[in-house]
């Protein structure tokens, strides 16, 4: 098999994979719920990214609305930025030598390795394939970097900036690969990692020292430390545009220059030398003949394990060690099945009554300390306002409650086919999910409220009135769970209606452009839902309050609270019925 045939086959693999993934995503758009998401996502993408790129293409100067006021690149500032960017590239490349593993490994997937390593393909071809397959990711990264590095900063030259970022990223990836090959070869010849790292650090220190020395000499000549932005800029320019820096950083400047070009012509002039550097780097990597296979297999396996772990556990903060978690309470075999789901969630959430007792103990000790420790001024102020801390935590926990519920639902929807075989109604499923997420949050809030009480009785005088300190907890306990559920309704509905987006079906193509649109719709929808749901609550509470005032203010408050809460929970009950129906209607066979 000649090299050209191999390259053709590998090209086929890449293009077909991308095309097939895209086709699966497009096929999913036949369902209107995904199509709407895709349209909104496309609009969002166009507004925030696309029009700037198109603007750069169609209106190279300043024809695009919103860009006409973009600042032109000041040539002096550009020199400074070029020098600083070149220094950044230098240190990134130096990092590749310092932090490289002694064994170089190319980032292949397990499937690629299983097919490509036993195939009659030369090592050099594999490296070229890897470099080629990296380009899609590098282009996307260039787009993202341009987006976050100030798209308006570059005027209407978006394509030039994106190309500039691409040149830098390609150089970094080529250099990283070449460095890892050389490091492996040097390690095989006896160079220890610590010596390599020491040498790398010394090189870095040397450059820093030279720049520092040159800058200090300028300071001495000038006679003082710069006191304004303009003086700082002048000093930076002096460091990077004169003395040893232009020589030391020369190749790195060549790489960053295209991205800072002020016009298409300037870009074309800067691109030539940059491409020459890229060619040298490519030739260096291409001619390396280092055995990367074994390390690549190990790396691929490690990655596959991590992905599998992350998929199966999907806990906040990544992978955790699995340990047995005690039950929050003893589950009787009879009763509402929804309780079983809540019970399972509390186990998964590490709900331990012991931890809550511990938190209460801390509150008791802190309150005692505030009450009895004789005090300086700071203790006095603590005494009067300490109750606000647990109160604030209790309020923040509302948000965590929403996250908790949404995470539980998404987790269980990943195994919806398992739950579908169980005698569970959709309503029971949703109630179980809500109870599981709510249980731990409400318990945490209760602990906080006890803390509020303890801190409230500790001082002689309070910074906030008693009525507020006790009223807020009572209100939160009454309507807090309702608010959490209200806020969770929409994300849960999204998870139930868009299971493919939530990747509940393991063989699906994963989220596409529609996912962006769905997130936008979700955010807007959440705001509208919350507003629309609270309007009837407020109306009823207001009416009851007015009626209660006829008797006494206390009666008015109680009536208003009770009436409002009743409306809120009635709305949630309706929502649970609707969500339950959505669960019943899930057809996993349609979510591919």
């Amino acid at each position: 098999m000649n090299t050209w045939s191999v390259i053709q086959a590998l090209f086929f693999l890449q293009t077909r994979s991308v095309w097939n993934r895209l086709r699966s995503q497009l096929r999913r758009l036949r369902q209107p719920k995904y199509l709407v998401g895709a349209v909104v996502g496309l609009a969002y993408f166009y507004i925030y990214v696309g029009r700037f790129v198109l603007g750069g293409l169609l209106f190279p100067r300043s024809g695009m609305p919103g860009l006409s006021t973009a600042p032109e690149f000041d040539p002096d500032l550009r020199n400074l930025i070029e020098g600083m960017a070149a220094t950044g590239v230098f240190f990134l490349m130096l990092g590749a030598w310092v932090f490289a593993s002694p064994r170089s490994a190319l980032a292949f997937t397990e499937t690629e390795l299983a097919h490509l390593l036993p195939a009659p393909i030369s090592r050099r071809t594999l490296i070229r394939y890897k470099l080629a397959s990296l380009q899609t990711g590098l282009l996307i990264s260039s787009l993202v970097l341009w987006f976050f590095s100030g798209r308006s900063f570059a005027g209407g030259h978006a394509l030039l900036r994106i190309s500039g970022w691409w040149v830098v990223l390609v150089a970094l990836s080529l250099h990283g690969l070449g460095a890892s090959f050389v490091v492996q070869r040097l390690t095989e010849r006896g160079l220890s990692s610590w010596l390599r790292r020491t040498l790398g650090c010394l090189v870095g220190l040397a450059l820093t020292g030279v720049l520092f020395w040159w800058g200090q000499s300028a300071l001495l000549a000038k006679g003082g430390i710069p006191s304004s932005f303009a003086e700082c800029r002048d000093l930076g320019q002096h460091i990077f545009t004169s003395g040893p820096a232009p020589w030391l950083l020369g190749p790195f400047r060549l790489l960053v220059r295209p991205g800072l070009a002020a016009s298409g012509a300037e870009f074309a002039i800067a691109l030539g030398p940059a491409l020459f550097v890229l060619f040298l780097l490519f030739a260096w990597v291409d001619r390396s003949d280092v055995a990367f296979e074994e390390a690549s297999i190990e790396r691929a396996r490690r990655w596959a394990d991590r992905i599998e772990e992350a998929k199966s556990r999907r806990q906040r903060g990544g992978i955790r060690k699995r340990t047995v978690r005690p039950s929050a309470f003893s589950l009787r075999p009879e009763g509402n099945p929804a309780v079983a789901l809540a019970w399972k969630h509390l186990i998964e959430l590490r709900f331990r009554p012991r931890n809550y007792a511990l938190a209460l103990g801390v509150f008791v000790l802190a309150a005692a300390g505030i009450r009895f420790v004789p005090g300086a001024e700071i203790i006095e102020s603590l005494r009067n306002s300490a109750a606000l801390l647990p109160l604030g935590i209790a309020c923040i926990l509302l948000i965590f409650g929403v996250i908790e519920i949404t995470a539980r639902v998404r987790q269980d929807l990943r195994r919806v086919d398992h739950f579908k075989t169980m005698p569970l109604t959709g309503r029971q499923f949703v109630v179980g999910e809500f109870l599981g997420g709510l249980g731990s949050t409400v318990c945490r809030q209760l602990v906080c409220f006890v803390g509020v009480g303890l801190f409230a009785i500790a001082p002689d005088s309070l910074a906030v009135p008693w009525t507020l300190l006790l009223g807020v907890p009572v209100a939160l306990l009454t309507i807090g769970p309702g608010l959490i559920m209200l806020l969770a309704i929409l994300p849960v509905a999204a998870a139930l209606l868009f299971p493919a987006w939530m990747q509940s079906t393991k063989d699906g193509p994963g989220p596409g452009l529609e996912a962006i649109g769905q997130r936008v719709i979700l955010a807007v929808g959440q705001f509208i839902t919350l507003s629309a749901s609270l309007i009837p609550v407020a109306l009823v509470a207001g009416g009851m309050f007015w009626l209660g005032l006829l008797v006494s203010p206390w009666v008015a408050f109680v009536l208003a609270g009770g009436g409002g809460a009743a409306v809120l929970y009635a709305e949630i009950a309706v929502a649970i019925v609707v969500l339950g129906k959505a669960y019943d209607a899930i057809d996993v066979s349609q979510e591919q």
Partner: protein
Amino acid sequence: MIEVSQLTKHYGDFAAVSELSFTVHPGQLLGLVGPNGAGKTTCLRCLAGIIPPTRGSLRLAGYDLATDPIAAKRHLAFFADEPRLFEYLTVAQHLAFVARIYGVKDADARAPLLLDELDLSDKRDSLPGELSRGMKQKVALACGLIHSPQVILFDEPLTGLDPLAIRRTKETIRRLAREGASVIISSHLLHLLEEICTHILIVKRGVRAAFGSLQEVREQFAHGDAGVDLEEVFMRIATQGDRPQPVSPPDSAVPPPLA
């Protein structure tokens, strides 16, 4: 009893299963066989209530799966080819969870017996991650059996098991049928099906190609040859070029006496 009538499932324009009808009486063990992509898994997933059929009626233990899914599922146990366990529930917690979902009144008494029977007693406080594949399979089996299901569906039940576990699983399946459950086993292991099944359903391209007792199916495709086994029958059906016409032995059969 499992009663399937005119089961049809379409994925878009593609008919994965077409007009499939059969009945599995209590005590019968039906082997579901077919080439890859024939519609076996779709059929099982419809029967398990995971995916809704496009057309047709499915009755489990006398309950219609479409109109009374909860009652139907209360009598169902579905064992997927991969045991599906919750990462953070111990073996005992799994049983407690499933018992509550299915409302098993005597779960406290049944759970230890099941664990004993499946040699899991010393693993009751272990997490799935600490168990071998065979052990996980046993846990899934314990979860599926705690509510004494009358309808049991197995999808490749012997995958990844060692010879000892294979023998025990076969014994368990036979025992369940003896105790009156209607069992369907989907598998490519034809010798297994020949060994333990009383009836065979062969599907090809979503259509019933053969159905009846093991003996009936063998005779139907023997074409005068002696000693035709299930593998030979399967090969003859699989290599027929045309879309098979539904053959029409009775949709149900009187259960033969069990050994």
